[in-house]
C-alpha cells in the first residue's frame, strides 16, 4: 500500500517501525508520515498499535527496529522530555496533570527556574492562556476542573513548550458536545499556527470532520493512509476490522422490541444534590432500557444511587424499589447481594484492579457476591472462573496470566463486564459500555447485552452515543438536567427527536 505523495518535507516520519514487547510485535513495519500543519487521524481497533505508535513518537518507548525522522533528521528519542525538546508533545487521554497543583504550576512544571515567584507564574500563565483564548483560571486547582478544561491545560502546556507536533490520544472521549465543538475550534487554531497534529479517536465522524489525512492500523500493521475526502465511514471501518461491521453495529433499525417483563427497578422522585432532581424511571425484566442524555444530565448518578455507590439526599431523597420493595444501600455490596450490577463508565479508575490478572479480577467480582472470608480464597477456582468468562466474552490477551492493565481497552471492558456478570445479577447497568472500545469489541459487547436481555435480565444501558442507544434499546429514556423527561419507543424514535428532548 503506497502513501499519497508528500507535498513538502514531512515534519515526522516513521519507516518500517517495529516495536516488540517480550518478542510480541505491538507494531510491525509501520510507515507513517506527518506533513507540516497537517491534522492526521490515527484509527484502529483497540490493540491495533495506535498507542504504541504514538508512544514511540512521543519518546515514551523506543523502537525495536526501523527509523524515526524528525524534520528529515533521524532520531532515537529516549524520553518524553527529549521528544519535547524536539517539539513533540503528547496529550494523553487520562491527563498527565498533577491534580493537587494549580493550573499555572502545572503549566510550568519541568520549566521551573532556580527561583520562582508564584505571583509571577500566575501572571505569565494568565497572559499565555489569554493569548490562546483559553478561559481557564491559572490559580484554580486542577482537581477542581472539568474534563474539557483539563484538556485545555494539557494543550496549553504543549504549546508553551513550543511543540510543533502535538499528539492527542482520544481527546474527545470525556468531552460534552459543546466542549467537543470548542476543542475542534482549538485544533483548527493550532493548525493555523503551523502546528502539526496527530489524533487518535474511536469516533469516525470526528476523524472525517477534523483530519486532513487518515491512517488506519490493524493488528500492529499499517493498512491504509489516504486523504479524508477519498474515504467514507464504511471504508474506514472495513479497513479497521477487515470486515464490514458498520451495518452490523448501527446500520439496521431495530424492528423487534422485547415486551416488558416484571418491573424490577422503580426509581421514584430520586434526589441527589444538584445532579439528580426528582428523577423517576423503571426498568423491566427481559428488556434493554436505554438511557440517553448529555453529560451532566444525572444519568450516572441516578444509577450509582441504585447500585449503592453514592447516597441519595438524606431528607426526602425519594425511593428506589427493587421488585416493588423499597431498598436503601449503605454500601455497594448490599446491592450486589440483591442482584444489581453496575458496570462503570470509568473502567481504569473504578472498573478493575490494574495490578491483578484477568482471572483474579473476575474472581474478585465473584467474591463480592459470595462474601467469602479471605482464608477460603481458591487460586484454582479463580483460574477456572477466569478461563470460563474469558472464553465466554472472548477476552483476548497475550497470555492468560496477563495483567488487566496490559490489555487493550475493549478487552479491559470485557473483563469489567465479566467481573459483574459472574455475580449473576438480575439488573445490569452498563454505563457507557463501549467508550474507548474498538468496533470489533463493540459488536461483541452489544451481542452480550442482547443476550442478557433475551435471558430475561433487566438491562440498563447508559450511553451518550445515539446510534448505540437506538440500536440496543427496547425503551429509550431521555434525561435532561437531573431527570428523565421523555420515553421513546425505539420504533418511533429518531435521532433528531431524542436530541431535541435532551436539549430543550
Amino acid at each position: 500500500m503506497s502513501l499519497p505523495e508528500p507535498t513538502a518535507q514531512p515534519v515526522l516520519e516513521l519507516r518500517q517501525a517495529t516495536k516488540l514487547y517480550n518478542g510480541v510485535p505491538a507494531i510491525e513495519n509501520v510507515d507513517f508520515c506527518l506533513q507540516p500543519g497537517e491534522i492526521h487521524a490515527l484509527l484502529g481497533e483497540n490493540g491495533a498499535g495506535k498507542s504504541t505508535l504514538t508512544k514511540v513518537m512521543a519518546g515514551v518507548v523506543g523502537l525495536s527496529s526501523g527509523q524515526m525522522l524528525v524534520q528529515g533528521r533521524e532520531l532515537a528519542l529516549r524520553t518524553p522530555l527529549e521528544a519535547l525538546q524536539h517539539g513533540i508533545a503528547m496529550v494523553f487521554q487520562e491527563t498527565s496533570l498533577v491534580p493537587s497543583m494549580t493550573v499555572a504550576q502545572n503549566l510550568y512544571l519541568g520549566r521551573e527556574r532556580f527561583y520562582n515567584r508564584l505571583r509571577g507564574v500566575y501572571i505569565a500563565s494568565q497572559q499565555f492562556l489569554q493569548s490562546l483564548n483559553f478561559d481557564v483560571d491559572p490559580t484554580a486547582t486542577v482537581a477542581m476542573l472539568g474534563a474539557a478544561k483539563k484538556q485545555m491545560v494539557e494543550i496549553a502546556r504543549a504549546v508553551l513548550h513550543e511543540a510543533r507536533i502535538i499528539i492527542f490520544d482520544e481527546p474527545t472521549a470525556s468531552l460534552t458536545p459543546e466542549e467537543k465543538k470548542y476543542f475542534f475550534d482549538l485544533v483548527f487554531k493550532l493548525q493555523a499556527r503551523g502546528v502539526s497534529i496527530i489524533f487518535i479517536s474511536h469516533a469516525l465522524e470526528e476523524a472525517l470532520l477534523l483530519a486532513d489525512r487518515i491512517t488506519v492500523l490493524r493488528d500492529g500493521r499499517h493498512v491504509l493512509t489516504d486523504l479524508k475526502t477519498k474515504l467514507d465511514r464504511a471504508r474506514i471501518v472495513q479497513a479497521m476490522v477487515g470486515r464490514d461491521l458498520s451495518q452490523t453495529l448501527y446500520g439496521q433499525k431495530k424492528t423487534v422490541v422485547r415486551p416488558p417483563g416484571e418491573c424490577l427497578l422503580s426509581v421514584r422522585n430520586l434526589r441527589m444534590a444538584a445532579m439528580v432532581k426528582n428523577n423517576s424511571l423503571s426498568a423491566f425484566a427481559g428488556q434493554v432500557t436505554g438511557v440517553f442524555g448529555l453529560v451532566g444530565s444525572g444519568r450516572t448518578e441516578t444509577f450509582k444511587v441504585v447500585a449503592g455507590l453514592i447516597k441519595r439526599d438524606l431528607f426526602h431523597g425519594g425511593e428506589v424499589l427493587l421488585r416493588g420493595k423499597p431498598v436503601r444501600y449503605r454500601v455497594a455490596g448490599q446491592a450486589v447481594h440483591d442482584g444489581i450490577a453496575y458496570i462503570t463508565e470509568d473502567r481504569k479508575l473504578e472498573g478493575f484492579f490494574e495490578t491483578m490478572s484477568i482471572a483474579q479480577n473476575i474472581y474478585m467480582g465473584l467474591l463480592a457476591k459470595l462474601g467469602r472470608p479471605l482464608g477460603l480464597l481458591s487460586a484454582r477456582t479463580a483460574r477456572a472462573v477466569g478461563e470460563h468468562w474469558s472464553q465466554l466474552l472472548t477476552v483476548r490477551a497475550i497470555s492468560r496470566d496477563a495483567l488487566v492493565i496490559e490489555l487493550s481497552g475493549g478487552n479491559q471492558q470485557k473483563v469489567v463486564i465479566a467481573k459483574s456478570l459472574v455475580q449473576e445479577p438480575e439488573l445490569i447497568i452498563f454505563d457507557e459500555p463501549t467508550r474507548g472500545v474498538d468496533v470489533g469489541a463493540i459488536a461483541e459487547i452489544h451481542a452480550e447485552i442482547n443476550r442478557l436481555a433475551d435471558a430475561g435480565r433487566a438491562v440498563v444501558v447508559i450511553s451518550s452515543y445515539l446510534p448505540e442507544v437506538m440500536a440496543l434499546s427496547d425503551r429509550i429514556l431521555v434525561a435532561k438536567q437531573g431527570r428523565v423527561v421523555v420515553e421513546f419507543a425505539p420504533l418511533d424514535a429518531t435521532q433528531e427527536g431524542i436530541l431535541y428532548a435532551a436539549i430543550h
Partner: protein
Amino acid sequence: MRTAWHAWLEQWLDRFLGRGSAAITVPVMDGVLKPNRALDAAEVMAQLPGIDDLASDGRTLWLSAANVLYRWSQGAAQEALRFDAEITALAAGAQGGMAVALAGQRIVLMRPDEEQVFQERASLRAIYGQALQGVNALAFDAQGRLLITDGSARHAPTAWCHDLMELGHSGRVMRWDVKSGKVELLASGLRYAYGVLPRASAVVFSESWAHRLLVPGRDRALLSDLPAYPSRMAPAAGGGFWLCCFVCRTQLVEFVLREPAYRQRMLREVDPRYWIAPALASGHSFLEPLQGAGVKQMGVLKPWAPPRAYGLVLRVAEDGRVLSSLHSQVDGLHHGITAVQEHDGGLWVVSKGSARLLRIPLPDREDGA
C-alpha cells in the same frame, strides 16, 4: 431483636427524613404507562356540558350529562329522559333495564314498557339505616343484581375533592338484589369507592384515594400503587377490562395530604377551585396553583410537568396486570376521564374535564396487548 420501641423510632426517623412510609413519591408513568396522545387524538363525537357516565346494554349506548339521560343514535346524542336531579351514575342491564343514581342519594331502577317509555320499578335511598350520599358508579352483574359504589358518607359525588382533602374513608360497595329486595354490603370504610365491575368469579371495585383495585374478601389488591386515582371500569371484549383514572397523583398533592394543619386551613379559607388539589380540568384561571416544577419553558407547557388535570385510561388484564394505556398529557385537552365503554367497534370515552364524548376505534381483533 426488634422491639416496639425500635419500630416507633424507625417510624419517627422515616417521618423526620421523609423516607420509607413517609416518602412523598409518586409511581412512575413509564413502560406500559408511557404517556402518549391517544386520548387527544380521539375523535370528538359530542360536546355535552356535564357529561359524566356511559352505559351499554349491548345494543344501545347511553350517556348521562347533568340531569339528562341520552341515547346515542344516528350519530348524535338524543335526549331520552330528564330528571329532577343530576345523574351521578348509570347502568344498563342486558334485559333492557336501566339504573340511574340521582344526586348520589337515590338509585332508581327503570324498565321500558311496551311503548319503550321508561317506567320506575324500584328505588333505593338508604342501606342499613344509612342514607346514600355519594353513589357514583353502578353495574349489573350476570344475575341482574345491581352493584353500587357509594363514594362517601359525607359528600356528594360532585364534591369528591372535599372527600380527598378530608382523607375520607367512608366509602361502601353494595349489591342490591332487586327481586328479593336484599342489599348486601360487600365492603365499607373505603377511601372513596368509585367504580365497580362484575367479573366471572368476583366483583372488582376501585378505592380511589388508596390508588388500588380490590376484590371483596381478598387481602391482596388486584392492582395497587397506581400513579392516578382509579374510578369507573368497563369490560373489554378481548378479556380484562378498561379502567378510568379521573385524576392523577402528584407529589405536591401527596405532600398536602400529609400536612393536616395546612390542609384544614386551605379548606377553610381558599376557594375550592384554587386548592392545591387535583382537578378534572385546569388551565382556565391564572389563580390556579402551579405544581412546583418548570411547567412552562419558552411559553410552552412541558408535557412532563406535574399534572393538575390529566386524562388516563388503562387496559387491565383479568389478573390485574396493566396491558396498555391511553393518555391526554398535561398539555392536552381531554382530561378528567370518568367513563369508558366499548360499543360498536370503538372505545367510547367521557372526558368530563373537557365535557366531550370521545371515540377511539378498536382493532378488529383484540389481542389484549
